[in-house]
């Protein structure tokens, strides 16, 4: 079946510095979309980014990600993190005809002053 791997459980970054959260996946399907969701403490997961186009950069709220099918990756990046970016970040994929999301286990991003 489909799977999503987020290798870092916890990432700590100093405010103003760049960050990259890793996401790799396995799927046998070609009609697949990829997502990053952000979840703040005691809140619902919220969509941050979505992409289904190979090698195209997608941006939102200062974050960006590029789907690379050649390496099965969809890493999330930001050039300058803020304290308010501290949250749990999930990478996910879904087959476009079902919408069922398969999530990774998440990465907790902590931004320190």
């Amino acid at each position, binding site marked *: 079946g489909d799977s999503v791997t987020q290798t870092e459980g916890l990432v700590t970054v100093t405010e103003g510095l760049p960050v990259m959260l890793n996401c790799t996946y396995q799927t046998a399907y070609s009609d697949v979309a990829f997502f990053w969701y952000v979840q703040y403490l005691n809140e619902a*997961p919220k*969509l941050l980014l979505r992409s289904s186009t190979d090698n195209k950069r997608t941006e939102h709220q200062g974050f960006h990600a590029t789907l690379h099918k050649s390496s099965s990756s969809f890493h999330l990046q930001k050039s300058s993190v803020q304290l308010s970016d501290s949250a749990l970040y999930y990478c996910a994929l879904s087959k476009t005809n079902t919408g069922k999301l398969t999530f990774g286990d998440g990465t907790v991003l902590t931004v320190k002053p």
Partner: protein
Amino acid sequence: EAGVTQSPRYAVLQEGQAVSFWCDPISGHDTLYWYQQPRDQGPQLLVYFRDEAVIDNSQLPSDRFSAVRPKGTNSTLKIQSAKQGDTATYLCASSLDTQYFGPGTRLLVL
């Protein structure tokens, strides 16, 4: 626009007790999903509906879990006889295209 709402927000049970969770999706969204999110893990799909029909319940433990969406709007997820392993957050999401999540119900089974 109101988001997805869920109730209760928290539940604490003894093993063997029953519990129901309610989800009110965003108006007009035809697809509704229930996910289980164990501590320190990503959400895992239990069941999803399109209108009132169950599309996929293959990950729903059918001996103790049931889910309905009788009018294609609100939905109820029920655990008949809870086990400690059911301790998790239960998330509801609805969509026309993009999934929007509710705040979840945190369940603790003692």
